[in-house]
């Protein structure tokens, strides 16, 4: 049974595209057939994060408008044979994305893949609502920061009311993914803690991605962080999150970089 998962947040710049690429790659590394779909029409970036920017010929809008077949627009990852990308259009008007078009494409992708990861644009407009429209599950990417948490709360409200599942009286299974987390700062009371965020959003936790230089390093070279440096703290955190999506029970820890005595003392206080 294929699963449609939207990666969303409301706020921009919190790590939706990075997380889509990393979770998509992690699931593919586990043997799942995965397609990542970029819904950010006009401002596509998933192709760049995946290192496929020079291989884009056709895009989502071309398929919606019947200019290209789905199979022509899908780009297979060069490193992971189970990972595919359906890029967004860079130039076309975002109104070209229609509800019917998205419905048709998602239904088609369901027959070909185990996972369909929809990378939502920021905001709460058409692109974001269409990205979540047909979702079975949602990953709400949240930074430990007030504006991000507020926007996540708003998005959770939309997932509970504007999706096809919600309209049928069913529930989109929601997970919070906390990114850019600094356990030291949280322990010192300088940053919202995991407990604070989960209590406020009242949504289960999928994973905690620590703030790390490895994330930028991976995007610089166009490789999902789980592929680029699998041993790094964010890569391990994304792999754990992907295992939880697969239904495995993985204990919730914040993977860490090499730590000094001071960090360890402060880290322990966080627990």
């Amino acid at each position: 049974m294929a699963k449609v998962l939207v990666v969303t947040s409301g706020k921009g710049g919190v790590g939706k595209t990075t997380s889509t690429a990393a979770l998509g790659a992690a699931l593919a590394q586990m043997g799942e057939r995965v397609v990542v779909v970029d819904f950010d029409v006009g401002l596509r970036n998933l192709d760049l994060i995946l290192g496929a920017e020079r291989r884009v010929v056709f895009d989502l809008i071309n398929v919606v408008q019947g200019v290209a077949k789905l199979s022509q627009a899908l780009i297979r990852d060069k490193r992971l044979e189970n990972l595919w990308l359906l890029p967004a259009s860079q130039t076309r008007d975002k109104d070209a994305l229609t509800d019917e078009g998205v419905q048709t494409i998602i239904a088609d992708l369901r027959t070909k893949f185990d996972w369909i990861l929809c990378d939502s644009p920021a905001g709460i407009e058409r692109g974001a609502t269409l990205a979540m429209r047909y979702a079975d599950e949602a990953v709400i990417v949240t930074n430990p920061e007030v504006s991000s948490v507020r926007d996540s709360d708003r998005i959770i409200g939309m997932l509970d009311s504007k999706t096809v599942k919600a309209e049928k009286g069913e529930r989109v299974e929601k997970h919070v993914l906390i990114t850019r987390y600094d356990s030291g700062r949280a322990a010192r009371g300088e940053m919202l803690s995991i407990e604070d965020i989960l209590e406020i959003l009242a949504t289960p936790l999928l994973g905690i991605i620590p703030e790390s230089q490895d994330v930028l390093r991976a995007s610089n070279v166009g490789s999902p962080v789980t592929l680029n440096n699998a041993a790094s703290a964010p890569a391990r955190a994304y792999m754990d999150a992907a295992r939880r999506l697969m239904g495995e029970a993985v204990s919730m820890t914040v993977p860490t970089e090499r730590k000094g005595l001071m960090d360890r003392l402060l880290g322990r206080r966080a627990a």
Partner: protein
Amino acid sequence: MMNLLRLLAGRNASAPVARERLQILLAHERGLRGQPDLLGLLRTEILAVVSRHVVLDPDKVIVRMERGKNVSTLEVDIEVPNGVERSIAMAAQ
């Protein structure tokens, strides 16, 4: 050592403030959710009720919500034309 850490923690502990602000804000915003145009609705209904008794210019009915720290105020400003008795009589017909 721990005392020193605690002292450091206390000085920079802005997270509790963030948490409290969010809890208050989101409690308010969740209340409004699902009825995004509360003011529009209030305006329509207030206009309907008052119009039953007084002839009004719909454009002269202003409904405003001001959010304060502890309480919010709902301000309803209705301009009634001069000769209220006549308006009342007309509305009664």
